[in-house]
Structures are given as structure tokens and as C-alpha cells.
């Protein structure tokens, strides 16, 4: 836990002007589109009613649908154009100014983004200076072929540029951006007006407005459900690219099979996954050793023995454990459990003197995942048909014998699924281990020693000073991908098991 963990991030210069020039016009365009849509709604509705001689019953659809039809086209399609434009324009500008950027900035997407933001900041200052009359667009355009003169002219206007090269790039950036911004506004508004005219023109009493509107709404719904897919693709791609960068700089066998983890700022780091993986699995194993017996017995007691009164009190209380934020458990581990274990167990037995240890994190995490085991197991035990129990009682078995020999074997697949889900939760848990397990990467069997996990190292490599060109930072993405793949496999296997199990008794 070094001081650098909570060091403030370096402020990115010039970012606010960029955002203002990007967002403010977009807000205005949006407001204009909304106004056009409202006008379109009124016109469309009125025109449809007029075409039916004021008698709504002679229209194909309800009058409102004609209004919605016009409004939908006037608003949604131009909005789509605007969004696409706002994504494509920076990519295009990036290509335009790429030759001017230093090669070091282009190596990583973060470096490129920062360099572009700085350029954007200068460009925004130029725009502001032009608006104040300090600079003349045509004049500096003419200076573009003489970098030194341009840089001097900008400095005279109170704009600081790092070097002449930047000045040219910023000028290039600014002039193209200005043209594109005007083109964007014009294109979006022109499209909106054109669509307004077209949809109003095709509005008459036989037009099937409802069907058109409903098809549009349907596309909207499909779009919303596809976002889930995009999120997954985004997760995988974002980690895959940076992981590929990482493996270009660091041998993958050394990463996956390395047993030493010592990142250094100067480079020459050893970034072996095994100690982190060991810590992760050790903590998770302790957590499961706590949570599985408690959760399972609690589930059995509540579904088989407890009366409705006890159940209605105990079940929500135990499920409350799942609703408590993990940072609360982290603090609990740091302030209460860690010192308690250290003073009463680890030190008297000579096992260690650290408050943060695998045992601390494991115990607290175990408490956290009790409800994950217990409520899913509870559902699953309840789903075992009563006839199986009755059959067993009929043969003279006691209740506990029935549970052990009949109910649990029948519910086993589902319970395994529940435990796998809990394991995936334990592996991916971050705050408890950050605050409870420690930061030292080591391969050791002593549970009272501080060890570290994959998630702790993701946090420590990506907070504080980060440089996305170095393997020390990029390794976090490889760790993230490893974590994602591990939990993905556990989740999918668990989901399939639970699903199969549910079908069995439905």
C-alpha cells in the first residue's frame, strides 16, 4: 500500500475546451431537432385529420400516429446521423493530424488520445482568438506552410504552443474541424427538414402510420437489447488489444508461468502471473470453505426445518449480507477482522504479524458469499418435488436421513451450480482483497501471511501514475482478460448446470 495509490491523476491539459466545442453545438442541434419534431408532430396530425375532412374515424390509424410518424423520422434518423458523425469525425481528424504527432504518442491509444486532446485544446484557443478578433482565419491559413511564422503569430495572440510542428498540426486540426462542424450542423438539420417534408407529403388518410411507427419502435427495442452484446464485445476488445500490446513487449510464457511478481518503474520487471493466481485461488478457497457449509446448512434449515416465522425473519437478514457494498466488508476486514486474527491467532502462534492476510480476506469474503450459496441452494432444494421426500418418509427414514440421502443428491447439480457462481464471485471480488489481503505477491502456504490477488494488482497497476506504453501498466489488461476468462467459464458452466437442473423438475 504505497502512497502513490491515491496520488491524484495528472490533469489532462486542454480537455475542457475540447468538450465544450464538441458538446455545446451538439446540445443545440439536439434542441433544434426536438423542436422540429414537435412541429412535425403537430403538422402531421393536422394534415392527416384534414385529409380525412376532420373526421378521425376515416383515417387508417389514430391521428396521433400520423404525428408520431413525422416526429419519429424528423428526430430519430438525423440523431443517428449526428451520433455517427460525432464518432467518425474524431477518427478522421486523428488520421489527418497523425503525421504531425510524435511517434511515441501514437504507440498507445491513451497516448494518442492525450496528444489529440492537447491539439484540440490549442485548436479551441485558436477558435476563441478568432472569435475575439485577435487572429484571422485566412491569415493563419496562409501561414500554414511556414511553421515558425505560424508559431510566432499564435504566441503573439497569447496561445502557447510547444513547437512549430504542433502549431501547424493545431491549425490544420482547427481549420478542418471548423469546416466539418459547419457541415455536420448543416447536414443534420437539412436531413431533418427533408425528412419532415417527405413524411408530411406522404401523410394522407390511407397512409398506414401505425404500422410505420410500430416498426420504428421495434427497431428501437432491438437496438436496446443489442447493447448487451456490444458491452461484451467492448469488454473483450478493450482488453484484447491492450493485451496484444503487452505480449509484444513481454514474453507470454514468462507471464503465464513466471513465479515472480516485481514490477519496477525503470523497466526490467518480472510480471509472473502464478503468485497472483495462487493468492486469488487461496483466498477464494478459504472463502468457499467458510461460505459453502454455512450457506448450505442455512439453506437446508430454512427450506426443510424452519417455520414460516423464523424463515420470514432469517432469510431477508441473510440476504441482506449480499446487499451490503463490498467496500463495507473491506473496511470490516481492515479494521476489525484483520487486527483480531493477528492479535489472537497469528501472533500467539508465531505465524505472522500482518493484519492483512489471506485468512482475513478469505473469512470476510466467505461471509459475503454466504447468501449467494444459501439463497440459490434454498430455491433449488425447494424445487425438489415433495413426492421424493414423502417416499423416503414412507420407508421410515428420519428427516435428516431424507435430506442427506434423497433431497441433497437430487439437488446436487443445482447446488454445484450455486457454488460455482459463488466461486466466480469470490475470484472477481476486489475491495475485500484490496483492503484485507495485502499487496505482497508471494507463493506461500501460510494463511496468515499477506498475499495478493489478480484483482488487487489490476487496481494497483491502473491507479496512480500510469503510462500506457509500458508493460507494467499494460499487464493489468492481461490480468483483466485472465480474470474475465476464468469467471466466464465458471459462470457459463454454472448457468448451464442450473438451467438443466431447473428443466429436470419443471
Amino acid at each position: 500500500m504505497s502512497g502513490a495509490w491515491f496520488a491524484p491523476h495528472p490533469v489532462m491539459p486542454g480537455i475542457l475546451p475540447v468538450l465544450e466545442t464538441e458538446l455545446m453545438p451538439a446540445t443545440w442541434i439536439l434542441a433544434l431537432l426536438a423542436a422540429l419534431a414537435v412541429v412535425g408532430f403537430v403538422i402531421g396530425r393536422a394534415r392527416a385529420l384534414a385529409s380525412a375532412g376532420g373526421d378521425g374515424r376515416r383515417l387508417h390509424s389514430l391521428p396521433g400516429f400520423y404525428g408520431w410518424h413525422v416526429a419519429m423520422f424528423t428526430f430519430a434518423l438525423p440523431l443517428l446521423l449526428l451520433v455517427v458523425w460525432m464518432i467518425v469525425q474524431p477518427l478522421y481528424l486523428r488520421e489527418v493530424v497523425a503525421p504531425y504527432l510524435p511517434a511515441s504518442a501514437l504507440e498507445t491509444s491513451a497516448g494518442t488520445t492525450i496528444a489529440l486532446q492537447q491539439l484540440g485544446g490549442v485548436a479551441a484557443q485558436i477558435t476563441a482568438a478568432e472569435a475575439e478578433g485577435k487572429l484571422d482565419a485566412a491569415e493563419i491559413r496562409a501561414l500554414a506552410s511556414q511553421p515558425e511564422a505560424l508559431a510566432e503569430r499564435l504566441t503573439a495572440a497569447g496561445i502557447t504552443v510547444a513547437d512549430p510542428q504542433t502549431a501547424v498540426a493545431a491549425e490544420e486540426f482547427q481549420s478542418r474541424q471548423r469546416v466539418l462542424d459547419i457541415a455536420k450542423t448543416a447536414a443534420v438539420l437539412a436531413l431533418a427538414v427533408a425528412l419532415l417534408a417527405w413524411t408530411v407529403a406522404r401523410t394522407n388518410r390511407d397512409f398506414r402510420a401505425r404500422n410505420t411507427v410500430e416498426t420504428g419502435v421495434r427497431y428501437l427495442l432491438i437496438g436496446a437489447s443489442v447493447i448487451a452484446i456490444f458491452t461484451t464485445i467492448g469488454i473483450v476488445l478493450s482488453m484484447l488489444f491492450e493485451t496484444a500490446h503487452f505480449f509484444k513487449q513481454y514474453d507470454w510464457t514468462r507471464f503465464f508461468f513466471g513465479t515472480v511478481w516485481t514490477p519496477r518503474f525503470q523497466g526490467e520487471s518480472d510480471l509472473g502471473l502464478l503468485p497472483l493466481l495462487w493468492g486469488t485461488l487461496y483466498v477464494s478457497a478459504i472463502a468457499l470453505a467458510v461460505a459453502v457449509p454455512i450457506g448450505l446448512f442455512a439453506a437446508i434449515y430454512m427450506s426443510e426445518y424452519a417455520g414460516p416465522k423464523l424463515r420470514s425473519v432469517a432469510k431477508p437478514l441473510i440476504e441482506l449480507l449480499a446487499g451490503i457494498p463490498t467496500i463495507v466488508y473491506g473496511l470490516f476486514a481492515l479494521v476489525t477482522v484483520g487486527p483480531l486474527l493477528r492479535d489472537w491467532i497469528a501472533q500467539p502462534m508465531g505465524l505472522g504479524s500482518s493484519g492483512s492476510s489471506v485468512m482475513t480476506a478469505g473469512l470476510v469474503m466467505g461471509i459475503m458469499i454466504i447468501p449467494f450459496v444459501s439463497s440459490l441452494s434454498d430455491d433449488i432444494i425447494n424445487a425438489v418435488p415433495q413426492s421424493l421426500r414423502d417416499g423416503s418418509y414412507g420407508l421410515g427414514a428420519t428427516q435428516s436421513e431424507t435430506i442427506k440421502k434423497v433431497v441433497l443428491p437430487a439437488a446436487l447439480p443445482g447446488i454445484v451450480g450455486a457454488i460455482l457462481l459463488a466461486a466466480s464471485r469470490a475470484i472477481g471480488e476486489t475491495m475485500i482483497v484490496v483492503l484485507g489481503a495485502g499487496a505482497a505477491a508471494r507463493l506461500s502456504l501460510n494463511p496468515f501471511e499477506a498475499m495478493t490477488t489478480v484483482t488487487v494488482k489490476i487496481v494497483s497497476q491502473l491507479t496512480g501514475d500510469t503510462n500506457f506504453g509500458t508493460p507494467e501498466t499494460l499487464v493489468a489488461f492481461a490480468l483483466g482478460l485472465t480474470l474475465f476468462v476464468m469467471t466466464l467459464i465458471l459462470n457459463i458452466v454454472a448457468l448451464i448446470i442450473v438451467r438443466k437442473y431447473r428443466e429436470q423438475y419443471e
Partner: protein
Amino acid sequence: MTDASLPHAGAAPASPSRKGSLLELDARTRKRNAAERRFRAYGLTAVCTGIAALVMLLISIFGGGASAFRQAFITVPVTFTESVLDKKGTRDPADLAKVTTIGYGKIIDTAIADWMAANGIAQVEGLADKDIGAIVSREAAAQLRNRVLANPELIGQTVETKMLANGRIDGYLKGRVTLQSAETDSNVTLGQLRLVDLMRDKGAMGLGFNWGFITAPDASDQRPEAAGLGVAILGSLYMMIVVLVLSLPIGVAASIYLEEFAPKNRWTDIIEVNISNLAAVPSIVYGILGLAIFVNFAGLPMSAPIVGGLVLSLMTLPKIIIPTRAALKAVPPSIRDAALGVGASKMQSIFHHVLPLAMPGILTGTIIGLAQALGETAPLLLIGMVAFVRDFPSAPPSGLFDPASALPVQVYNWTQRADPAFVERASGAIIVLLVFLLAMNAVAIVLRRKFERRW
């Protein structure tokens, strides 16, 4: 499962023939009954352990954090001496602003010394003169300065003023700092603590409710007494607005499509597995996504509530979709059939009838999803919300792009600081967080109780 009971069936004839009364249990029955009781006891123990863990957790947090809401204050008459604060006597705001907090520190030193003189305290054992003013928080000087700048008429007057005490003094009043611990502590002297005792006896010092803890921004490492949650609460609020605005409509739209329109084919199956998997992806992975895409690629500012809100929205989406689909499914088909029967289109039957009926369930799910997002820490660490932020973000929408903190991250931030007073603050912040969560869950429960219909 007949095979499971076979051993019993086989064992029954082999049992020895019974002698004596039927009411007297034989050894095997007693053993089986004991096993039964044991098994039951294990179950009860497990339930009790779970509840005990919850109780311990809450006691630990509330026991440690409740005192953060009370703070030591010193109330003494302060003379705003003109010769120090406004040498020219012009009351010109520019001149007044030139006096730094050092000048106000002197005013405070004098005020305490005057109070001692007025109460006949000439000498306190082990108290050096330079330490007298140090019992007041360094933040108090800044607060006095702001007061004078806002109201220059104070200059020349003597006003009874309530000032924050130093963090160690606060700890002494709360029992965290003792005379023993002070001997080895370089930040506080025994003399100061004796003075504090005297001041407490005379009513010039005491604990009061600490509004600053809820409204003030974070303070630096050396001033735990002044650290507050204002920026964090505002940042969390901004993020929740973003999450609500994005994930509720998108989540409901996606659920409607998947539940009502989607054909049952491979494509929708992929979407469904995807959504259940997204609900179980570790939260830190979303943080990596946010850092790589929203910050590094799209160039949104770090530490900004908009980025946090976007990341949390993606996380919350599957958690809203799953209960929303359940709520839609719970509306009986007869409602749909009746709507279709009187000529409504499918879209109309859903938006006019099914959706309103499912609304209580949807809102309950949304609130619970929001509550989870509110407590989420790990992804926010990666997008820079750990930064030390002292300025309040401006009003939305532009405030969404200003740096801010978040409640759970503030807790983490404070646990990483050296001064033990911050642990009390962290626990106190958790109490605030839990109060918010409790309120949200209470609303969800009321919604469910009041509006949910069983068909």
C-alpha cells in the same frame, strides 16, 4: 431416487428383535434421533452464524463510525483586530483578500490566549505558547477568512465564534487519544490536553453535531477534522442520475423486446446467455472497459461522474433487465388477449396494458439495481475517482464532466490515509452510504407491498 432408500429397506429386517416396552427406544433409534437432532443443530448454527456475522459487521461499522457525526468545537470570543486584517482600514476587498490564513491564525492564537487570561489560567503545565493556537484546526483559519471576506463588517468586532478543534483534540474528547498515547505523539502535547480539560470544564469546548462531515469537501491528510463527504455525495448523486437516465429506458426496452417480440432462435439465445453472464462479470472488468473505451479511446475526462455513470450503467443494465423480464412475464396472458381482442395492436397492448401493470416490479428492480451501483467501488478506482477533489462540481450537465468523488471511493480513499482519525471518518461515510441504501431499499419494498398485484 429409489436407490437412495434401498439400504434402509435392506437394513430393516436385519434389526434385532425388540425386547421390552415399545415406548423405550432401542440403541439404534436413539442414535438415529441423536443424528437428527445434531443435523438440525448444524442448520440452526449456520443460520445463527450468518446472522451473527451480519450483526458483528454492523456493530463494527456503527460502533466505529457513529462518532464521526460528532466533532470537537471550541467556542471562544474572537476579536477581528483591524490592525491585522485590514491595515489600511479601507475595507477594500482586494486588500482584505491579501491577508492569508496565517494572519487569521494569529487572530485565533490571540483569542485563545485572551480566553485563558479572562478565565484566570496563567500557566498550564507543559504547554508551550506556540502550541496554544494549535489546538484549533488549521481549517478554522480558512473558515474565519471566508467569513470576513463575505462580511467585512466583522472587522473590529469581538464575536463569540465556534471553531473546529484539531483532529488530535477531537480524538482526545472521543477517547481515541489518551494522555499515554500523547506522550509518544509528535502532533499533540500533554500541555495541550491539559488546556483542553480546563476548557471543557469551563464550557469553552465540547462535542457538537458535525454538519461539515456531510456537507464539506474532502480535506488534506493533516486535517482529518475538516474532511467531509459533500463532493462524494454530489458525485454519487450525479452518477446515479446518469445511471437512471440511461439504464432504465434501455433496460426496459431490451426486456420488452426479449420478452414480447424476440423469436426463439439462436440469436436471442446468445443475447440471453450474454445478459446472464454480464450480470456475473466481476465489477473490476467494467472498470477496465471504462478506462480503455471511455477514457483512453473516447477521451472523456478522468474522475468525471459521466464516465463513472456510463460504466455503472453498463453494469446495472443486466441487473435491471432480469427483474424487468420477470415482471413482464408475471402479467397474465389474459390481459394481452383482452387488449388484442378489442383491436389493439401488439405494440399497443404492451405499452398501454402490460407495461403499466408490470411497472411496480420494474421500478423495484431498478431501485435495487441502482442501490448496487451506488455501493460499487472497484470500477470507479480505475477511472480515477480516487483523485483528491476539493472543488464541488458545477451543476449538470457541464458538472457531469467535472472531477468528483463518490461515496464508496471516498471510504477507500480515507482507509489509505495515515492518520487513524480517518478510519472513524471512513466508518462514518459507510453509515451515510448505508442510510442511502436503506432508504432506497425501503422505497423498493413499499412499492412492492403497495402496488404489486398477484394474479
